[in-house]
């Protein structure tokens, strides 16, 4: 680090640290506000949703909602900015959408899966992108289901293992390519290292690959553009960045992979304001901030004349260790550049600010 004129690299400043009395699995900013949500599981086996507001150097608890089953994940991705309904997946396989002003009865509820919903994502809401609002859930029962909040009980798309095939846990799901009303793509990562890309317009499998280690988190750099990049993180400290603009008929997408640390990389999150910067959180309680550099030419012709992509390179901008326990969830604020919240298994939630992102 050049220590010449001040600190030139982006710094990760820990702004607030809040100890919690329960295990937090997911934390999310409430869009258009300085409020954040923590979702988790209390010691007595019930689910908790806590709403905090950022006041100066501390978090003030505004509301606490208790639910019968522990909650694993949540998203605001499929609601409008006025409603701001939270969609959650819990340990029992239930998908619920809550109105936080009146949380006693869910706005939408379905027992979507037989086992815990590991991951959830929403698209079509918050004024981002076009098309119908949809929610995708990935579960330990090996299926990935897409739901429309206007349609009760049955999913609008179901990606399930072939009859008789032994199922693999789906650990993560993400929406992408939602640049117009019809196009949409779901990416799912499984515990055996499979990554599958499903096209919802043609209802088919568009691409699949295996990265050898279980896939902990996948995310597109933007949900609402023509699919550009996908980052997939896995166990044993590796993550892969796929360039999705050029698909080769046999080789698929070009990728670059990086080994960040020895422990699992739990989450990857792209900065909403700059799609080439992303943060990965690790099992050793560390956060790494990365920047992707595009290559001079993003695609080239191979020996048979078909186009194949060229992967760029990834640079580490900063890394910081905040905790001794894994940081399992991470969320950037869509409203303030550089503001993010992370929740770790040491029962603390931390609000961080990453500085100097304008200068990158």
């Amino acid at each position: 680090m050049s220590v010449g004129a001040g600190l030139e690299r982006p710094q990760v400043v820990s702004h607030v640290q809040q100890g919690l009395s329960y295990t937090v699995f997911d934390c999310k900013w409430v869009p258009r506000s300085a409020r954040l949500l923590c979702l988790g599981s209390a010691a007595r086996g019930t689910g908790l949703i806590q709403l905090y507001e950022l006041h100066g150097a501390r978090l003030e608890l505004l509301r606490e909602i208790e639910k019968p089953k522990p909650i694993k994940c949540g998203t605001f991705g499929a609601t409008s900015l006025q409603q701001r309904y939270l969609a959650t997946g819990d340990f029992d396989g239930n998908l619920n959408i809550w109105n936080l002003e009146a949380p006693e009865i869910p706005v939408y509820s379905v027992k979507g899966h037989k086992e815990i919903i590991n991951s959830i994502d929403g698209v079509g809401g918050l004024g981002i992108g076009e098309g119908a609002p949809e929610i995708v859930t990935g579960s330990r029962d090996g299926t990935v289901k897409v739901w429309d909040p206007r349609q009760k009980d049955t999913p609008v798309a179901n990606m399930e293992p072939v009859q008789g095939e032994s199922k693999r846990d789906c650990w993560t799901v993400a929406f992408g390519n939602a640049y117009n009303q019809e196009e949409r793509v779901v990416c799912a990562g499984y515990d055996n290292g499979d990554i599958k890309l499903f096209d919802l317009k043609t209802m088919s499998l568009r691409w699949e690959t295996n990265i050898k280690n279980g896939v902990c988190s996948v995310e597109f750099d933007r949900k609402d553009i023509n699919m550009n990049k996908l980052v997939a993180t896995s166990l044993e400290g590796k993550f892969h960045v796929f360039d999705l603009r050029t698909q080769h008929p046999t080789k698929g997408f070009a990728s670059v992979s990086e080994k960040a640390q020895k422990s699992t990389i739990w989450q990857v999150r792209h900065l909403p304001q700059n799609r080439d910067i992303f943060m990965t959180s690790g099992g050793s309680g560390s956060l790494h901030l990365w920047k992707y550099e595009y290559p001079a030419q993003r695609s080239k012709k191979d020996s048979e004349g078909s186009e194949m992509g060229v992967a760029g390179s990834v640079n580490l901008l900063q890394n910081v260790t905040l905790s001794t326990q894994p940081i399992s969830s991470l969320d950037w604020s869509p409203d303030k550049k550089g503001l993010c919240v992370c929740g770790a298994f040491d029962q603390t939630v931390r609000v961080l600010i990453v500085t100097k992102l304008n200068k990158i």
Partner: protein
Amino acid sequence: MPVWLRESSWRQTLTAVYLELPLRGARATPANIFCGEQYLKVSIPPFLFEAILYAPIDDTNSTAKIENGNIFFTLYKKEPAIWDSLTLANADKEKLQHLRENAVLKAHEKAKEETEAKKITKQEHKKYALEATMKLEEAERKRIEDLKEKERQKVAKELELWKKQQKDADKYESIQKKRELHQEIKPLKERKNEKMNKTRIPNEGTSKTKLKSTKGCHGSSSMFSQNLKEEQLPAPRSAATIKVNFTPRVFPTALRESRVAEEEEWLHKQAEARRVINSDLSELEDLKEEEKNPDWLKDKGNKMFAMGNYLGAVNAYNLAVRLNNKLPLLYLNRAACHLKLRNLHKAIEDSSKALELLTPPVPDNENARVKAHVRRGTAFCQLELYTEGLQDYEAALKINPKNKNIEEDAEKIRHLIQGTMQSS
């Protein structure tokens, strides 16, 4: 024998002695000169000059200059006096020797002291350097900390500012919304009346529109508000299923759990074993094609074992082993046959060979290893070597702790051992 240098010339003052020594062409370096308190030696092989001085001199301050093939000594006397001669005249051999040794010793001690003094100063210097660097580093650290603090404060301020902005924006928005709502309700009411009129007239029209809206939304609150919204959003997708296949794996363990190296080795071995054909061509010519295939022979052997024809089975396995002696299963099955035939020693041999071939130990060959241990254990017990038998049973239990039969048999053997020990 050294060549003595004797052509020295000297003169003296009260405090010093000046000695000039021509070197006869030899070249001198400081290493060749040795000077003690009362002893002076110049040794340039093969030349040698030695002098026991009349009186002690101060050897630290005395100098020697090497120039033009001569050495000029300037020796400062310890006690100012006039010397009768340069060297001690009445020096007998012993005294000479003694003096020489003393001089050498003294020189050694001096050297030692010097090195120690050097060491001490060196250490002190090091300590000082260390402290200095530590101070520098502390200063550096502090500077960085300060910079970070500043950043933190700056950022906190920005955040507060942004929050305020948010709050204000929110308030503004809510006020706007209220105003808009008021405005909207009026035209909405008008439109509602219009639509009501339209739907009453054409009946077909109504059913169609009704179908459309019900298809699009289940459980909607009012058909009217939904219509407005649906103008912006497409209908939900028609449900479909995509079937997926998962990447097959030879071993269903995650990468970090698998003992990939060992498993690879095992697979490799198996593959190789199948390929090995150690055959004795002359004998095999009169065998049919199938009979040259060790797998086929193994199957034959298995069938005969099942029917009770143990000798036949042994023959089949023997032939198979001659063809390919790397398949562990052949030995394993042959051991079972020998057990039935009560060829206990052969059973033990075969089980041992099978176990040898079943390395490295992986989950894949667990069953085979359990069987091998059990068979060998049984053979030992039937030979009344109960301790060895028990060892094998315990090994089998270790691989597969859930097998009740093995447990019970192991218990029985333990009892037997205890029984025999008590009685003997």
